[in-house]
């Protein structure tokens, strides 16, 4: 029987890790992720994660390097980080995915410096978006737990690492009602770890990750691309299967009331939940507002997004990252997904909720209002709108 508990997002992730049973965990503490690895360390110390080893390292670069090494030996591994810690890992992020290692790493999203911030935006994970990892964004504490389990299953099926992103504080430190699955049910969904085709073994020495010439580099990267394509094909099935085991199905996107909508709010992370509530309240007042939540940002479900949005009148994409020099990454993806349609909805890009600023219901209502106003003029805004910027706040 699942247990219903009051858990914050960090502890929910830790429960997911306990149930998945990695054998090696290496991490370096950083706010707002620290309670995840503290809790996992407790589980290892008290025997709740039998046979697991915690490696205390001196940096995030070493944390990811340690789990890369352990994954290469052939075991399930876990790490977690946030913000500047993820940035310090950057070099190894590519090593992990290029070596096709099914690592699961939780990222409690935190704005990258500068200015320094402890608080959420997606600038940390978005900076890693093209590094060949699967990126899943949790809306709430339940999803933070579930996506650990779904993440390991998907990672091990396609031999790719999964970055599980949860909004710093709004999910990581917010407490909600979470159903913690039964270990037996988890075992039925997530089988015991099977080592991949390439493994380090002292009895059969080989070199992995050596210098690669132009003769084969492209082909190896192409295989990597195919693995992400495969992940996108597989995710809907695994998400359904997750639903049959635990009663909560998952999909790469969650689209509600999009067809014919005057405005569809597109977002990821915790604000997707707020958007759904705002849309519900506006629909009750007679406005046609839909929502599209992107759970899988990498691989990006281009076709599903196009299908969901093709019959909407206008679309407002909310990026909780800067997109400096261009526009937010989610907005770029949505626009690209719609480009091949002969008749496209109007799309306006919004930036909001940076560095921990509350992405409030009022902010999202203002997004709807602005998009409606633009739609009534038959247009969208060419440049991104920083909807919650305050005039005169910083001189």
């Amino acid at each position, binding site marked *: 029987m699942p247990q219903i508990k009051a858990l914050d997002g960090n502890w929910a992730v830790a429960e997911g890790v306990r149930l998945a049973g990695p054998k090696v965990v290496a991490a370096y503490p950083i706010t707002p992720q620290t309670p995840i690895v503290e809790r996992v360390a407790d589980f290892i110390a008290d025997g709740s994660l039998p046979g697991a080893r915690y490696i205390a390292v001196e940096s995030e670069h070493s944390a990811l390097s340690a789990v890369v090494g352990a994954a290469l030996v052939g075991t399930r591994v876990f790490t977690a980080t946030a913000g500047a810690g993820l940035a310090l890992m950057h070099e190894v992020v590519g090593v992990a995915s290029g070596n096709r290692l099914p690592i699961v790493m939780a990222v409690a999203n935190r704005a990258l410096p500068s200015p320094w911030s*402890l608080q959420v935006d997606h600038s940390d994970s978005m900076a890693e978006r093209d590094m060949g990892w699967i990126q899943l964004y949790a*809306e709430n504490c339940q999803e933070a737990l579930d996506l650990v389990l779904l993440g390991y299953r998907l990672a091990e099926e396609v031999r790719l690492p999964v970055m599980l992103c949860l909004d710093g504080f709004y*999910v990581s430190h917010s*407490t909600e*009602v979470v159903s913690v699955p039964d270990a037996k049910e988890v075992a039925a969904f997530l089988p015991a770890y099977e080592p991949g085709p390439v493994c380090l073994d002292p009895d059969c020495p080989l070199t992995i990750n050596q210098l690669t010439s132009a003769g084969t580099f492209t082909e190896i990267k192409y295989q990597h691309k195919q693995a992400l394509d495969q992940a996108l094909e597989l995710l809907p099935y695994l998400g359904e299967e997750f639903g049959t085991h635990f009663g909560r199905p998952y999909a790469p996107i969650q689209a509600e009331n999009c067809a014919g909508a005057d405005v569809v709010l597109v977002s990821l992370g915790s604000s997707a*939940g707020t958007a759904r509530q705002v849309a519900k309240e506006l629909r009750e007042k007679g406005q046609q507002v839909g929502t599209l939540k992107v759970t899988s940002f990498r691989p990006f479900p281009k076709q599903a997004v196009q299908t969901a949005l093709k019959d909407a009148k206008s679309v407002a994409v909310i990026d909780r990252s800067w997109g400096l020099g261009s526009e937010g990454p989610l907005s770029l993806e949505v626009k690209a997904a719609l480009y091949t349609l002969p008749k496209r909805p109007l799309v306006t890009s919004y930036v909001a909720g940076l560095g921990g600023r509350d992405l409030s219901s009022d902010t999202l209502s203002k997004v709807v209002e602005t998009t409606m106003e633009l739609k009534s003029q038959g247009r969208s805004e060419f440049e991104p709108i920083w909807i919650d910027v305050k005039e005169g706040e910083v001189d």
Partner: protein
Amino acid sequence: MKEIKILSRGGQGAVTAAKILVAAAIKESKYGQAVPNFGQERKGAPVYTFARLDEEPISTHTYVYHPHAVVLFDLFLMELGIDPCAGLRENAILVANTPVDPVGLEIGSSFAKVGCVDAWGVTKEIIGPVPPNAAMLGAFACTTGWVGIDAVCTAIEEFMTGSKGEKNAACARAAYERTMVYAR
């Protein structure tokens, strides 16, 4: 859905109280959410904590701007310019940590219902010099009726094991019994 704003200082245990409130909601087959507003705070600095209670799952993930109830751990926060009456919903409820009779509480006039308890006093008497959060939960249960005192006490004992849990649960129950409630 009931939206709650908790005003306190770092070290008074409001974040833990909000978590316990979620656990208490589970005991009554309800949904709850606690959203802390962490900054670079230190002990004694003002802390805002937000909570929601509902019969349905809660999808909003934001701070609370229009509370149905305000829980005021420390009246002196008002001297720092913090306004417990900001953005109140109609018929809002105040739960305040003060030995003052709610009829005479000045800010009470902005609220439809006011519950007052000397949370420091009750806590000191039953446990000792520790944060008044368990007592404030008892006062919250008494004043709002949105969660039962039994659920609150069970949730406290889940969060704090052993004698610490028992003492805090006893403290919540004592505060529940001693809360003076005045409805306009």
